[in-house]
Structures are given as structure tokens and as C-alpha cells.
């Protein structure tokens, strides 16, 4: 520890001693207590003698030193206060005085340490820098001025060049100008020489700067010498040698610093240094320069003046030349006329227009060249009177009498005297022609616009008419279909009925004829309607699953009779790979094949008709199937093949006479195939036969075919179906009854929806055939009531004469199951009725095999949907609810019945009241809830009523049924829970 302390204090004192700055420790009263060698050097007094003396005695200003000393003790420190040391030999050293107090461990101020930095060298460098800067600044200024002069000279030279270029063009016209130019060039050369001189001087300055560096080096050398002498003085003291080395290093650093300074200030500094030494020289030179600059300025002024003059003259000449070119280039005749009216100058256009040569024109009277000289003279006078005239029409008398617009203005000399008139005569022949053409064009355009507007109006009214016509057509078609179908329904229906009675052969023949006519008429109407629908964009293709093979074979059955009659052969090729159930529109597919096959049958008298259904492609989603119908009939001529698909077109005009038909069949086929993404192809050879084929894609499905869409096999075994026919027209009532009797179905007739509903409330039916248009309550209203108010799910088939898509959509919307178009096809009617009635029978049979399948289906009266929702299908809660219902309901029912029997209104009312919420909970038809409310109302007003017993009985029966069902349900839940 001790050693370290010693070591440290020794090290500190070495540092202090090594410092080139005088370091002094002073006591509180300003006595020197310690010092370093630098202090000894700076004062020239021995260390021993210095200690104990007043430190401020060694400064030139002891008072200031004393004050600074006090300041140190007052503030604790002081920095950079300038003072001057006095060496005992009288040398003065400027220092920056820095001091700070030093304290003992307990913080007591013991004294102050003072550092006095020798700033003599620093000060000199600063002064030098300032001087350099000043010089540099002055030099910069001068240089700037010189540069400006050079720029000015350059500018002048440049301008001169420019001017020379211009002047060169005019050289022939102006020799004096050339002389002046030469002069200028000489001056410029002189300027270049002056510049060269300047450059030379700059070089000189640079040389001097180099000399300054040498001087600096000399200074360095002298400093070295000084250091050596100092070293000799303290040769005994190694520390001092070391210090001297240090000093030398610092001196070297200073030199480097100087060099750095010099280097940094670069050219400027060099020049500045040179300027210090050669100030007089420079001043002289600058005077010279100034003089020369002054001369140059004067010369410049002179030049500028001359240039101005030159420019003016050049400009004038250019203007003159330019103006001349312009004048000559002008297509308008231009003249100048003197005061006497004689032509003094003109341009080429004037020569051309008058046909007189330039020489011939000059000096002649310009009025002579106009058809109306008098008028021209007036114009001329007007020019002198007003100073100008504008657009005065005149005609130049040349070979072809050119119409011109006369424009003129006087021209004057510098003093304002009128010298003559400049005249421009604009040739307006072209203008006039164009103006005339324009006028004509405008007239034509206006006429055209008028015609166009008329046409537009006509077109608009035509469009309107056309639109109205289309609407009217659609309306007509719609009306027609209805109006015609209704009577046709009766005609065909009764013909069929009549045919079943005992008839003579003749009668039978006639009736058959009537039926056939009716049938073909219906086909025609259907065709027209279909086309109208396609045209109106109303044709909508269904996407329902159906059985392709069943569908095709059922359809082909329809032709069996006809084919047999004509003694033809029907070949059916059905690709076994076709998936059984496909998704598409079976009705439209029927229609397409029906049309093609009926054509084939119609136009074939012997041979065979082949219907082929081939699977072309099959992937996971769809199956692409090609349908082909080929015959061995009359065939189609090649040039007719395009036409046969157009409306009302047949292969030949004679065809319809021979074979009948409207020519709509193929048009419909095309219209039905193409919107479904298919195309129809035909190959044919006259007298050999035709092949019609089309390709359609059907989506594949896993779901079962909808029974109603496929044509079901007839099941003559189904009997005892109770049908309610709702139909207002007596004829149709009779017809339907006949048909249904024929099927062996039981049939009731209601004349309108209201009667139908009444009947339904009294007697259960299996199916309702509902006409749509009826008085009192139409089919839609009735169906809505049956579905929504009666909550009955009885199958309802609409009977409609107007098979528009809108109606069909409406039928589905109100909850009808199907529709049959009038006139009713008995086969379709049968199929649809059986199809609809059979379905619930099948499902019922599954649930309760013991029940007689011929019974009307007994639907479940409860529906646990509500309970499921409420309990979130929690089986425990469900069971709790059901068991509560089972416990409560029989009590309520008996209480209700007893109350009714006893005329105990309040208990009846209370029992029924309590029953009410349970209907909703158990999903029992709201009709019963309404019944209960009715009973409650009756009970409230304590009035016996006829209907009330019936209601009570109904409530009882539904509650009993509900209890039975719910018991099963309870067990089911219980079992499934396990």
C-alpha cells in the first residue's frame, strides 16, 4: 500500500515536473508552496528561491494575479485568465492562468494549484491565422473581381462572336463593321494576354508560397538549435533532457500543425503568404490591374456601345430581311404606295395576282388594278385620313377578277411624316367559295338532321308498337290457351266418355275422328304455348332426380298403338351403363323425344323407328347421354336441313298437306335442347330416312327419383281412394266424376273452395283435385287455408288450363303437391293421384305393418320439435316434460268432460284453459288449440252451444292420441338413453 502511494505520488510529481506549463501550488495567503521546472524556466529563478515567495510577484500585473488568486479561493476554480510572466532577465511570457483549490480529506481548502499555460506560440499562430484570413479574404475579393472581369470578357467575346456571326452575313453590306470587329478581336487578344499575365503572376505567387515553406523550415531548424542549446544547459539533468525531447516533439507538432494549416489553406494561403512578403509588389500589380480593369471597363463600354449600334443595325437588317421574306412569303398581295398613289414596292403575290411583272408594277398607279378605281381611291384616302383601313372588299382586275379584302395602314418615318401606305389585299376567292360551300353544307346538314329525327321518331314509335305487339301476342297466347283448353277439355273428355258407351260402328268412327282432331288441336296449342314461353324467356328447366330408363319406356308406350297401326317396327336401344337415377327435367326430355318420335312416326310409312339412348361420357359429377331417333321415312333434302328447325317450317310446303302438323315440333326440340346446353343434329337422305340426335348432360345423384316425376307403372289394384274435386264448371265436374268413377275412386264434388273446406271438415279425403279459377274462393286461397289454418297435409293437385310458369310457381308456393293441365289426360291423372296417395301409405306401412294399408293414413298428432328446441334435445328434460303431460292431461280431459256434462262452466273453462299451452308444447296442430279457446270462450259466457260438444270430443280424442304417441315417444327416449 505504502509503496503504491509513494509510487503514485512520485508519478504525480513526475507528471507535474514533465509539464511544459508552469505549475504552481500556492497557499491561502498566496505564497508559493511548490512548483515545477517550467515555472523555474519561465521566471529564471531557482526553485528554492521561489518557494515561500508571493506568486504574484512574477507577473507583470501582480494586482490582477492577486485578484485571480482570490477568485480561485472564492470560486474553487478559475480557467483561462490571461496574465504575463516576467522572467528575471526581463522576458515576458503570456500565459493563460488556470487554477483550482485543493482540499484535504475533510474538505478543508489547503491551497490552490495554478497552471499557467504558455500561449505565446498559440497567440502568434492565431495572429498569423487572422492575418492569413484577412489576406485570403482580400485575395478572394480580388480574384472574384478578376473572375468577374474574365466572365465579362468571356461574355463580351461570346456576344461578339454572336454578333460577328450575324455581322458576317452583312459583311458585304458593312465594311466598317468588319473593321470594328477586327479592333474588337485585337482587344480580345489583349485581354487574353492580360489573362496570361495574371496566370503568370499567380504562378509567381505560388513560387513565393513555396519559399515561405522553406522559411518555415528554417524556423524549425532554428528552433531545433534553440532546443539543443537548452539541452546543453541542463545536460546534467536527464529529466530535463527528456523534457527537451518533449519540447522538440511539440515543436515538431507545431511545425506539422503549421504545415497542416498551410496545406489546408492551400492555394489561397500560399498566395496569401506570398502577398504578405510581396505586399508592395501586389499592391503595385493590383493598381496596374485596377488601371487595366478601368481601361477594360472603358473599352467594354465602348464595345457595348458599338455592339448596341451593331445590334441595332443588325436587328434592323434582320427585321428588314425577315420582313422582306415574310412579305414575299405572303400569299396575300402586299403593296406600298407613296403619297401620289404610285406603287413603290410589292411582293410576289401581287405579281402573281395582277400578272404584271415587278418592274412593270413599280411606279404605276395602283388604283388601275382594281375594277373600281374610284372606290380604290376612296379606300386609299381613307387610309390617309384614319391611318388605316380594314377588310374593305375590292376586286383586282386581273385575268379572272380576284375578290380581295383590302387592308391598309400608313407608314411613317422616324419623325412621324407619312411616307406612304402599306396595303394588303387578301384574296378571298377561296374563302368565299368555302363560305358558300359551308352554307350549302349547313343547309344539307339541317335537312339531314330533320330527316334523321323524323326517322328516329318513326323508329321509336315502331319500337313501341313492336313491344306492344309482343306483349299483346303473349297475352293473346295466354288467353287463347285458356280459352281454347277449357272447351277442348270438355270436348275431348266427353268424347272419351262417349266412346266407352255402347255405340254403333259408325258412331264410334266419328267419335274417334272427333277425339283425334281434338288431340291434335291440343298438341298444336301446347306447341304454340311452349314456343311463346321460350320466346318470352319463361321456359324454366327443372332439376329433379328421375329414372331415365323408366321415363323413356313409359313415353314410348304412348306410340305403341300408332306404330302398330302403321305396321312399323319400334326398336329401342338403351345403354345399360346409364346411371339409374339422374338429375334433369324429365318433362322437357319427354317433350323433346316425343316430338322427334312423333315426327318419325308421322313421316315413316314402312320400315322401323329406332330410339337409342347411349352413354357418351361419365364422370363423378355428370353423365353425358346421346339420344337418337332414326326412321326409314321420306327423309329431308339437304338444302332444307337448316330450315326445318325454324318456326312453322317443314321440309317442303307440300309436307303439311300430306302429313299434317304445324311445323313447330322441331323448332320446339331445338328450343328445348339448346338452353340446356345441348345441340340437335340431323342426318338425312331423301327416301332413305333421317336420324335426329341430340346430346345432353345430366347431373348424377344419390337421391331417389321423385316418384311423381317418373311415370309410375299403373297399379290398377289401388281402389277406395276418396277424391274431392273442386271445380266450378258443371261440365268439368261431370267429366272428372266420370273419369274417377272409371278408376274406381270415390268422388265428391265441391263447386268452390269454401264448399270444399266445409266438406273436408266433415269427411276425410285422400286427395283434392283443385281447379284454380273459381268463384267465392279460388284454388290458391282454398289451398292456403287447408295448409295454414287446417294444418292438413292432404295431397292437393291443381287443375289448370293455363300452364304458365308463374301459375305453377304459385301452386307450389301455396303448398300444392302437383298440377295437371287441362284437358286432363286420364292416364296422367291416374298416375298422379295414385303417386301422391300411395306415398304416405308406404311410409305408414313401415311404421305400423299391422294396419290395413287401405285405411286412410293416420298421421301423428304430436310433434316434438318444439320440445326438442326448448330442452335442446336433453332426453332427461324431454322425459320429464312428457311424463308431466301424461300425468296431467288425462285429469284435465276428464275434468273438461265432466265440467261439460255437469254444465260446470268454470271447471270446464279452467280445464280447457290449462290444456291450451300443452298443444304448442307437444306440437299438436294449432287447430286444436283454437278449438280449446273456443270452448273456453263458450264456457266464459256460460252458453250452451251445438258445436261445443263436438269440440270437446275432438279435444278429447286428440289428447288421447297424443298421450298414446307420447307414451311411445317416452319409451323410445328411455330406450335410446340406455
Amino acid at each position: 500500500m505504502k509503496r503504491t502511494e509513494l509510487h503514485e505520488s512520485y508519478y504525480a510529481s513526475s507528471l507535474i515536473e514533465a509539464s511544459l506549463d508552469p505549475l504552481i501550488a500556492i497557499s491561502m495567503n498566496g505564497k508559493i508552496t511548490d512548483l515545477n521546472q517550467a515555472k523555474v524556466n519561465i521566471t529564471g529563478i531557482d526553485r528554492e528561491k521561489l518557494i515561500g515567495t508571493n506568486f504574484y510577484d512574477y507577473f507583470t500585473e501582480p494586482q490582477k494575479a492577486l485578484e485571480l488568486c482570490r477568485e480561485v479561493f472564492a470560486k474553487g476554480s478559475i480557467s483561462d485568465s490571461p496574465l504575463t510572466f516576467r522572467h528575471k532577465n526581463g522576458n515576458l511570457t503570456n500565459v493563460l492562468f488556470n487554477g483550482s483549490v485543493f482540499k484535504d480529506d475533510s474538505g478543508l481548502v489547503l491551497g490552490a494549484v495554478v497552471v499557467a499555460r504558455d500561449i505565446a506560440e498559440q497567440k502568434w499562430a492565431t495572429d498569423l491565422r487572422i492575418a492569413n484570413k484577412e489576406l485570403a479574404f482580400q485575395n478572394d475579393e480580388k480574384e472574384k473581381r478578376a473572375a468577374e472581369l474574365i466572365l465579362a470578357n468571356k461574355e463580351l467575346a461570346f456576344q461578339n462572336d454572336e454578333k460577328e456571326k450575324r455581322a458576317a452575313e452583312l459583311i458585304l453590306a458593312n465594311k466598317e463593321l468588319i473593321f470594328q470587329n477586327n479592333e474588337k478581336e485585337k482587344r480580345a487578344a489583349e485581354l487574353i494576354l492580360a489573362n496570361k499575365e495574371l496566370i503568370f503572376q499567380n504562378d509567381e505567387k505560388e513560387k513565393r508560397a513555396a519559399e515561405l515553406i522553406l522559411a518555415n523550415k528554417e524556423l524549425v531548424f532554428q528552433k531545433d538549435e534553440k532546443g539543443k542549446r537548452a539541452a546543453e544547459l541542463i545536460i546534467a539533468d536527464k529529466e530535463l533532457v527528456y523534457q527537451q525531447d518533449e519540447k522538440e516533439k511539440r515543436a515538431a507538432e507545431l511545425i506539422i500543425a503549421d504545415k497542416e494549416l498551410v496545406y489546408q489553406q492551400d492555394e489561397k494561403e500560399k498566395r496569401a503568404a506570398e502577398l504578405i512578403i510581396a505586399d508592395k509588389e501586389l499592391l503595385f500589380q493590383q493598381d496596374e490591374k485596377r488601371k487595366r480593369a478601368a481601361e477594360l471597363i472603358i473599352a467594354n463600354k465602348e464595345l457595348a456601345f458599338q455592339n448596341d449600334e451593331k445590334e441595332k443595325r443588325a436587328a434592323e437588317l434582320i427585321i428588314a430581311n425577315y420582313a422582306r421574306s415574310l412579305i414575299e412569303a405572303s400569299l396575300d398581295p402586299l403593296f406600298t404606295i407613296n403619297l401620289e398613289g404610285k406603287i413603290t414596292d410589292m411582293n410576289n403575290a401581287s405579281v402573281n395576282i395582277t400578272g404584271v411583272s415587278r418592274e412593270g408594277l413599280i411606279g404605276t398607279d395602283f388604283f388601275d388594278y382594281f375594277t373600281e378605281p374610284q372606290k380604290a381611291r376612296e379606300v386609299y384616302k381613307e387610309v390617309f385620313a384614319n391611318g388605316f383601313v380594314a377588310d374593305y372588299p375590292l376586286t383586282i382586275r386581273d385575268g379572272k377578277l380576284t375578290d380581295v379584302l383590302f387592308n391598309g395602314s400608313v407608314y411613317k418615318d422616324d419623325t412621324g411624316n407619312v411616307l406612304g401606305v402599306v396595303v394588303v389585299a387578301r384574296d378571298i376567292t377561296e374563302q368565299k367559295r368555302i363560305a358558300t360551300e359551308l352554307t350549302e353544307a349547313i343547309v344539307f346538314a339541317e335537312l339531314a338532321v330533320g330527316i334523321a329525327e323524323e326517322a328516329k321518331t318513326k323508329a321509336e314509335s315502331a319500337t313501341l308498337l313492336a313491344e306492344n305487339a309482343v306483349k299483346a301476342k303473349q297475352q293473346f297466347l295466354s288467353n287463347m290457351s285458356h280459352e281454347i283448353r277449357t272447351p277442348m277439355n270438355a270436348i275431348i273428355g266427353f268424347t272419351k266418355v262417349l266412346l266407352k258407351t255402347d255405340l254403333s260402328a259408325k258412331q264410334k268412327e266419328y267419335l274417334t275422328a272427333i277425339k283425334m282432331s281434338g288431340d291434335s288441336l291440343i298438341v298444336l296449342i301446347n306447341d304454340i304455348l311452349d314456343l311463346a314461353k321460350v320466346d318470352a324467356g319463361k321456359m324454366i328447366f327443372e332439376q329433379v332426380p328421375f329414372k331415365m330408363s323408366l321415363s323413356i319406356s313409359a313415353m314410348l308406350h304412348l306410340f305403341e298403338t300408332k306404330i302398330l297401326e302403321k305396321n312399323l317396327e319400334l326398336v329401342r336401344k338403351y345403354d345399360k351403363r346409364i346411371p339409374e337415377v339422374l338429375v334433369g327435367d324429365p318433362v322437357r326430355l319427354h317433350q323433346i323425344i316425343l316430338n322427334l318420335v312423333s315426327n318419325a312416326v308421322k313421316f315413316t310409312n314402312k320400315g322401323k323407328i329406332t330410339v337409342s339412348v347411349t352413354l357418351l361420357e361419365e364422370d363423378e359429377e355428370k353423365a353425358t347421354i346421346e339420344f337418337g331417333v332414326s326412321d326409314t321415312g321420306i327423309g329431308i333434302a339437304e338444302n332444307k336441313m337448316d330450315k326445318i328447325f325454324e318456326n312453322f317450317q317443314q321440309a317442303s310446303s307440300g309436307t303439311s298437306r300430306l302429313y299434317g302438323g304445324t311445323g313447330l315440333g322441331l323448332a320446339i326440340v331445338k328450343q328445348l335442347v339448346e338452353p340446356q346446353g345441348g345441340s340437335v343434329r340431323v342426318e338425312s337422305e331423301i327416301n332413305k330416312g333421317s336420324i335426329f340426335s341430340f346430346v345432353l348432360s345430366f347431373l348424377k345423384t344419390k337421391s331417389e327419383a321423385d316418384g311423381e316425376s317418373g311415370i309410375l307403372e299403373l297399379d290398377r289394384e289401388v281402389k277406395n281412394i276418396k277424391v274431392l274435386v273442386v271445380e266450378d264448371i258443371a261440365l268439368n265436374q261431370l267429366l272428372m266424376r266420370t273419369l274417377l268413377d272409371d278408376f274406381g275412386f270415390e268422388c265428391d264434388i265441391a263447386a268452390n273452395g269454401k264448399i270444399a273446406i266445409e266438406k273436408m271438415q266433415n269427411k276425410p279425403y285422400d286427395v283434392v283435385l283443385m281447379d284454380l279459377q273459381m268463384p267465392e274462393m279460388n284454388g290458391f286461397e282454398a289451398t292456403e287455408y287447408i295448409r295454414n289454418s287446417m294444418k292438413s297435409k292432404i295431397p292437393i293437385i291443381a287443375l289448370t288450363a293455363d300452364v304458365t310458369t308463374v301459375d305453377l310457381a304459385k301452386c307450389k308456393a301455396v303448398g300444392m303437391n302437383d298440377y295437371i293441365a287441362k284437358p286432363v289426360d286420364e292416364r296422367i291423372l291416374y298416375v298422379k293421384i295414385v303417386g301422391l296417395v300411395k306415398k304416405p301409405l308406404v311410409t305408414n306401412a313401415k311404421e305400423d305393418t299391422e294396419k290395413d294399408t287401405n285405411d286412410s293414413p293416420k298421421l301423428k298428432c304430436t310433434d316434438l320439435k318444439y320440445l326438442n328446441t326448448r330442452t335442446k334435445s336433453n332426453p332427461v328434460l324431454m322425459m320429464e316434460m312428457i311424463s308431466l303431460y301424461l300425468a296431467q292431461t288425462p285429469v284435465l280431459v276428464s275434468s273438461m268432460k265432466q265440467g261439460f256434462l255437469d254444465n260446470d262452466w268454470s271447471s270446464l273453462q279452467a280445464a280447457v284453459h290449462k290444456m291450451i299451452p300443452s298443444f304448442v308444447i307437444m306440437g299438436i296442430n294449432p287447430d286444436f288449440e283454437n278449438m280449446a279457446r273456443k270452448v273456453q270462450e263458450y264456457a266464459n259466457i256460460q252458453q250452451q252451444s251445438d258445436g261445443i260438444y263436438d269440440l270437446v270430443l275432438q279435444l278429447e280424442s286428440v289428447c288421447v292420441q297424443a298421450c298414446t304417441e307420447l307414451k311411445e315417444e317416452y319409451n323410445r327416449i328411455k330406450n335410446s338413453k340406455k
Partner: protein
Amino acid sequence: MNNKNKLKLFLVDDDALYLKLLEIEFMQHDEFIFESFATGELCVENLLHKPDVIILDYHLDSVEKNAMNGIDTLDKIKTYNPDIPVVMLSSQDKIEVAINCMHHKAFDYIVKSETAFLRLQKVIKTIFHTRKIEKTLDWYMEKL
């Protein structure tokens, strides 16, 4: 669990089926605990349990003739503590019934229908909303 923060409901209906349905309904909502009573008498006896809301059937005397009906029960509850909100339930959708209930200071009147549960939930929400607003109002009134 923490039944203190839950709202206590009294469900009162002599229709066991409907009462069960009510229970099921409120069981599914975690924020409620409830006590069910088949009669108005039982409900009144248990008012000590401090229900937050009482859902009360209008017809409480349909099974037992001498039982207290809904309106009587409502009056009893209101005598006991007029601040308990009571929501009346009835299968009768009649204006007279509704007005009668309101005259006896029922908070609301709900018809037992398919939408009854939705309405009940809404009413209960409204009750607490109203109560909160009233409390705030009281606080401000006191400040004034």
C-alpha cells in the same frame, strides 16, 4: 356455485307442465337460480327467500277451486314488498286481463305462446335495466 351473484326467480304456475317448461328454460341460463311453486300460497310463504323477480301465472285456481288466484297472489306479494317485480303469465291473450294485471302493479304481462320465453328473457333484462336506472336516479336525487 356462487349463488349470491345469481338472480333468484320465483316461478309460480299450477300447470305442472308449463312450470316444468319454465324451469327448463331458466335452467339453461346460468345467471338464474329459481324456486318453483304450484300455488300462490306457497309463493307468498316463501317470500322470505327474497326473490329478485317473480313469474306468476294468472290462473292459479284451475285445479284447486279454492286456491288463491294470480291477482290475489300478486296483491299479497306487493303488500309484502312492493319493490319485487312480478311478471304475469297467462294463456289468455286478452286486453282486460293485461290491464287488470297492470292495475295490480304487475311489471309486465306475457301470453303463454311460442314467443313467451323470448319475451320473458327480455322482460327480465328490462327489469334489471330499469332497476339500475332507478338506482342511479335515486343517487342523483339524493345528491340534489
